[in-house]
C-alpha cells in the first residue's frame, strides 16, 4: 500500500509543479496554454545544462534562467503587446516542440538519448523534487494569501481596474506572476526529465502541460485543491501503468487513453462551477 502511494507521488510531481506554475499565472489573469511548451523547454534545458556542466543543480539553474526568459517574452507578448493569450500559448508550444527537437537532434543525435544521473530517490523512495513540490504548495499558499504581492497578483486577475486605481502597475504585477509561474513550470519539466525519467526524449511531456491546466481548474484555484487534483491525475497515470502491466490481454493503447479521458471528465466537472478569475484571458489596458 505504501509503495502504491510512493508511485502516485512520483507520477504526480511533475504535473503538480506545472499546475502550481499555471496557478500563479492564471490567478494573475493570464491564461497559459503554453504550459506544455514551457515544460518541454524546462525538461530539455535541465538535461542539457546537466550534460554541459556536469552538475545537476547547475542544470536546473540553467533551465530556470531559460524559462525566466521565455516567461518574460510570453508576458511581454500577451500583457504589453496584447497578443491573444491562447494563440501566443499555442505558438509557444509549437516553438518549444521545434526548438527542443532541433537542438536535441543537433546535440545528442537522432534516436540516441542522453542519460543523465538525475535526483536519485533519497527519502522514503521519493525524489527530492517531490518534497520541493510539496514545499512549494505551502510556500505558494503563504505567498498568495499572506503577502502584498500575492494579493496584488490575485487582484489583477480578478479586478485589474481596482489595482490600477490604487496606483499599482498592473502590467508589472502580471509580468512578475508570469515569470515566476514560468520558472515553476520549468522546474516541473526538470522533474519529469531528471527525477522521473533520467533522460530527455522528443515530446516527452505528452500532454502533461494540458493535464496540469485541467488540474488547476479542478483544484478550484487553491494550492491545496491543485495538490489534490494533481494527485488524482498522477493516480490515473499510475493506474494506467499498472493495468498495462497486469492485463496483457487488453490492448495497451486503449489503457493509455485513461489519463486523457479522466482529464476530459475533470474539465466537465470543474467547468460547471468554474472558479476562473474574472479577468482571466481578458486584455487589460491601463489608464496611464
Amino acid at each position, binding site marked *: 500500500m505504501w509503495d502504491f502511494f510512493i508511485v502516485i507521488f512520483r507520477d504526480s510531481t511533475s504535473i503538480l509543479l506545472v499546475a502550481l506554475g499555471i496557478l500563479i499565472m492564471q490567478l494573475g489573469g493570464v491564461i497559459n496554454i503554453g504550459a506544455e511548451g514551457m515544460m518541454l523547454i524546462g525538461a530539455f534545458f535541465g538535461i542539457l545544462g546537466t550534460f554541459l556542466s556536469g552538475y545537476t543543480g547547475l542544470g536546473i539553474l540553467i533551465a530556470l534562467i531559460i524559462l525566466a526568459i521565455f516567461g518574460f517574452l510570453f508576458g511581454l507578448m500577451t500583457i504589453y503587446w496584447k497578443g491573444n*493569450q*491562447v*494563440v501566443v500559448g499555442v*505558438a*509557444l508550444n509549437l516553438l518549444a516542440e521545434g526548438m527542443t527537437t532541433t537542438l536535441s537532434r543537433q546535440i545528442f543525435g537522432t534516436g540516441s538519448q542522453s542519460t543523465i544521473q538525475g535526483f536519485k530517490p533519497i527519502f522514503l523512495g521519493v525524489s527530492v523534487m517531490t518534497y520541493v513540490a510539496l514545499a512549494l504548495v505551502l510556500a505558494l499558499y503563504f505567498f498568495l494569501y499572506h503577502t502584498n504581492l500575492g494579493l496584488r497578483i490575485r487582484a489583477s486577475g480578478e479586478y485589474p481596474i481596482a489595482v490600477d486605481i490604487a496606483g499599482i502597475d498592473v502590467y508589472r504585477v502580471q509580468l512578475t506572476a508570469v515569470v515566476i509561474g514560468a520558472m515553476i513550470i520549468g522546474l516541473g519539466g526538470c522533474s519529469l526529465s531528471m527525477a522521473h525519467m533520467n533522460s530527455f526524449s522528443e515530446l516527452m511531456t505528452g*500532454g502533461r502541460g494540458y493535464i496540469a491546466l485541467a488540474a488547476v481548474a479542478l483544484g478550484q484555484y487553491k494550492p491545496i485543491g491543485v495538490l489534490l487534483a494533481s494527485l488524482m491525475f498522477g493516480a490515473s497515470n499510475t493506474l494506467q501503468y499498472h493495468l498495462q502491466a497486469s492485463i496483457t490481454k487488453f490492448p495497451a*493503447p486503449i489503457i493509455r*487513453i485513461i489519463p486523457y479521458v479522466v482529464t476530459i471528465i475533470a474539465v466537465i466537472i470543474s467547468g460547471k462551477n468554474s472558479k476562473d478569475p474574472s479577468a482571466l484571458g481578458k486584455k487589460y489596458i491601463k489608464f496611464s
Partner: protein
Amino acid sequence: MIRSKLIQYFLYPFIAIMIALLIGALIILSGGNNPLEAYRLMLEGSIGTSQTLAETIVKTASLIIAGASYAFAYRCGMLNIGIEGQMLAGAIFSTWIGVNLTFLPGLLHLFIAVIGGILAGALLGCFIAFLKNRFGANEVITTVMMNYVMLFIVEYLVTGPMREAPEFPQSARVLPSAGFPVLIPGTRVNIGIVLALLLIVLYGYYWKNSKKGFEMRIVGENPTVANSIGINVKQNRMLAFAISGSLGGLVGSLEILGIQKRLLQNFSAGYGFDGIAVALLGKNSPIGIMLSSFLFGAMKTGGNMVQMFSSVPSSVVMIIQAIIILLMAIQVFSKKTKELERA
C-alpha cells in the same frame, strides 16, 4: 484606405516571414550548418522541380482545408485545437469504408468514403461544442485531450482490429474505387486541390455574404450582444464547431484516400496544427489562407528535403512557423490594437 489594407495584409506578413527565416537561420547556424545552403535546399526541394512542386500542391490542398477549419471556429469565437483529432477520426472512417464497402460502384464509393470522414469529424466537433455548451468545458483542453485519445485509438486499430498483416502496424489498402482521382498523371496531385479551392471560395462567400455567417460573426465578437438581440449563441457555436470538425475530418479523408491509401500509425504530418498557423498568417481571409497554405506547404516539402540532404532536422520549419504565428499574433507593428478579440 487601400494602402493601409495592403500594409496590413502583405507587408506585416512579409516582415514576419523574413524575421522568422532570420531566426531560423541563426538556429541552423548554431547547429554548425550553413543556413543559406539549407534555405537553398528548401527552395529547390519545394518548388524547384515539377515533382517537388507537385508535392507542395498536394500539401497545399490539405493545409487550405485545415486552415479553413481553424478559421471557421475562430470567427465564431472558439478555438479548435483539435483538428488533428478530427482528422484522425475522418481518416479512420474513410479507411474503413474504403476497405470494407466493396460492393459500391466507382465514384459512389469515393463519395461515401469522403462523407464518412466528414461525418466523423463533424461528430467529434459536435461533441466538443456540446461539452462547452452544456458544462462550460474549455474547448482548448477538451480538443487537445481528444487529439491524444484519437491518436491512441488509431494505434489500437492498426495494431488490432484493422491490421492487415501481423508484420506491419497498418490497415489494408483502400480499394482503387475509393481513391481520389489523380489530376496530373505521374504525380500525387489529385482532385483534392480542386476541392480545397472550391471550399475556400465557399468559405469566403459564407462569411462575407450569408446571413448565417453574419450571425456567427456577432456571436464570435460578442456573445452577450448576440444573445440580447435574439441570436441563439449555443446553436451557432454547435454549428460552427460541427463545420470546423467536418473540415478537419475531410483533411483526414483526403490524406488517406488521396495520398497514403491506408491507415498508418503516424500518418499525420501535423496538418491540424499547421492549420492554425495558416489561418493566423492569412488573417482568416480566403485569399490569405490560400497563399499561406502554399507557403507552408512549400516549407513542409522543402523541410523534408533539407532533412534528407543535410544534417539540419526538418523540425527547424516548426520553429519558423511558430515565430511567424507569434509575430502575427502580437501585431507589434500595427497601431490598431483595439481590434475586438477574445481569448
